[in-house]
C-alpha cells in the first residue's frame, strides 16, 4: 500500500477509543435523522423530497445543494450512527446547520421560541449541533465506529505488506 493512500486513510478514518465521541455521534445522528427522514421520505409529517426541494427553491437554495442537504440529514445520520465516514457526514451536517442559520434563523435572534411569542426559532439549537459535529470532524468516530475498524485494518495491512517485503529481501 502506498504511503499517500495510507495517509489518506489515516486522515479520513483515524480516531481513538473515546466513548465521548460515541455519545456525540449517536446523539448527532438521533437528532438529525428525523429531519432527514421528513425531507427524504416524508416521514414525521415532512414534505418528502419533491416538496422539500420546492420549499428550498422558494428560499433560493438550488436543487443540487438541496439534495446534498437532504442526503446529509438522512444518509449522513446513518453514517454518523454507524461511525462510517464520520468526518464526511459531520462536515455535511455542519454545512447544513450553517446554511440553516443564515437562511432562516439569524433574524430570530439567539433563543428558540420557548414562550411561543417570537416570530420564529433562533439559532441556539444550531450552535449546540455545530459544536458536536465540529468535535466529530476533528476527532473522528471514536469507540464502536466502523471508521475505527477500517483504520485498524489499514494499519495491519501495512504491517503485513512490510513483513512480506522484508521476507522477500
Amino acid at each position: 500500500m502506498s504511503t499517500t493512500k495510507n495517509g489518506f486513510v489515516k486522515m479520513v478514518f483515524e480516531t481513538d477509543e473515546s466513548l465521548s465521541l460515541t455519545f456525540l455521534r449517536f446523539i448527532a445522528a438521533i437528532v438529525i435523522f428525523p429531519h432527514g427522514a421528513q425531507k427524504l421520505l416524508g416521514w414525521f409529517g415532512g414534505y418528502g423530497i419533491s416538496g422539500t426541494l420546492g420549499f428550498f427553491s422558494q428560499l433560493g437554495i438550488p436543487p443540487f445543494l438541496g439534495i446534498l442537504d437532504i442526503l446529509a440529514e438522512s444518509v449522513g445520520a446513518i453514517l454518523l450512527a454507524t461511525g462510517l465516514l464520520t468526518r464526511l457526514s459531520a462536515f455535511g451536517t455542519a454545512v447544513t446547520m450553517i446554511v440553516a442559520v443564515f437562511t432562516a434563523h439569524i433574524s430570530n435572534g439567539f433563543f428558540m421560541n420557548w414562550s411561543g411569542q417570537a416570530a420564529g426559532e433562533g439559532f441556539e439549537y444550531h450552535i449546540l449541533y455545530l459544536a458536536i459535529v465540529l468535535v466529530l470532524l476533528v476527532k473522528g468516530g471514536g469507540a464502536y465506529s466502523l471508521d475505527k475498524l477500517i483504520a485498524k485494518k489499514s494499519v495491519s495491512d501495512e504491517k503485513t505488506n512490510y513483513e512480506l517485503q522484508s521476507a522477500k529481501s
Partner: protein
Amino acid sequence: MNANLFHQLLSTDNNIILTLIRIVLGVVVFPHGAQKLFGWFGGHGWNGSMNFFKNVVGVPYLLGALSILTESVLAVFLVAGLFTRVAALAILINMIVAATMHFKNGFFMNWNGNSKGEGYEFHLLTFALSIALIIGGGGMFSLDSLL
C-alpha cells in the same frame, strides 16, 4: 472529601476539544440562567421565574432555585472550567428535567410555528455535550487543570 477522589474529579488532559464543548455549552446555557436570575434578555428575573416554577410548572422551591443557579452560576463555571464535571452533571440533570416538561410537544422544535410548543430535540443536544464533559473533564485552559 478524600483528596484522591477530589483530584480524580478534577483530573483532565490537555484536550482543546473539551475546551470547545465547555465554552459552547456554557455560552448557550448562560443566557437562560441570566433571564431567570437577573431578568436579562427579556427574562422574568428571580421572583418572576420562581413564581412561574411554583404556579405554572409546579416545581418545588428548592428545585426551582437549584435550576436557576445551575443555568447561571454553573454555566459560568463551565466556561471557566471550574468543577467542570459537577457543573456538567448539574446541567445534564437540569436538562433531563426540562426535557420531560417538553415531552408533550414531541421531538421537534416548533420549526414551522404550527406546533403547540417546543419539543425535546434541543435538550438531547445538551445531553451529548454534558456527557462528553462528565467523561473528559475540563480539558485545556480549565481552572480544574490548575487546581
